[in-house]
């Protein structure tokens, strides 16, 4: 069965410090991978998605970047965090690529607090 791992679960970082959040998927190959951010009291905002190694699509201009160095690894980074980067970050993968209608499966999330 497929599983998705995301870490760390909680992170407190000072403004201006770098960020690296990692996500890995097991039990599937060539998945579509996603990074979402969830602010308090709001829905999920798509930040980046990737359909393959080295292929990154950005949905919103921001202080963050994403990379996919391996098929089942997706990394969210920042060189210098801003206060506005605080939020709940979720990694997700899309199942059964090739079908038009597919659902996302989410990791457990990382609560990032920038102070």
């Amino acid at each position, binding site marked *: 069965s497929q599983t998705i791992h995301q870490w760390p679960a909680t992170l407190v970082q000072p403004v201006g410090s770098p960020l690296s959040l990692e996500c890995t998927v097991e039990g599937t190959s060539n998945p579509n991978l996603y990074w979402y951010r969830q602010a308090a009291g709001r829905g999920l905002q798509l930040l980046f998605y990737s359909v393959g190694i080295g292929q990154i699509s950005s*949905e919103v201009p921001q202080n963050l970047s994403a990379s996919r160095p391996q098929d089942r690894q997706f990394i969210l980074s920042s060189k210098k965090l801003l206060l506005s980067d605080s939020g709940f970050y979720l990694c997700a993968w899309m199942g059964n690529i090739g079908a*038009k*209608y597919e659902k*996302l499966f989410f990791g*457990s999330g990382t*609560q990032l607090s920038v102070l």
Partner: protein
Amino acid sequence: GESVGLHLPTLSVQEGDNSIINCAYSNSASDYFIWYKQESGKGPQFIIDIRSNMDKRQGQRVTVLLNKTVKHLSLQIAATQPGDSAVYFCAETRGGADGLTFGKGTHLIIQP
């Protein structure tokens, strides 16, 4: 963006009663809809989905209704239990690699 929105941010129901959570979507081209449940501090979990060629789909204790005429989606939970307490999101897509568009969520509170 958030083209999918929810009518009520908080819904409080008595344990054992039925719950109805509503969702309005704005993109008439969307043809696949999903409901997710998110417990505090966790990632969203899939509950049920429906395609635009259907107007009703049932699962275990849950039913999703789709009204394409008014672009409205609802989730019905039968005999609500304490474990149903969570935030519920609807999501939509036209299909494609860019994933789903989510609404703001409804917090379902279960009264004993």
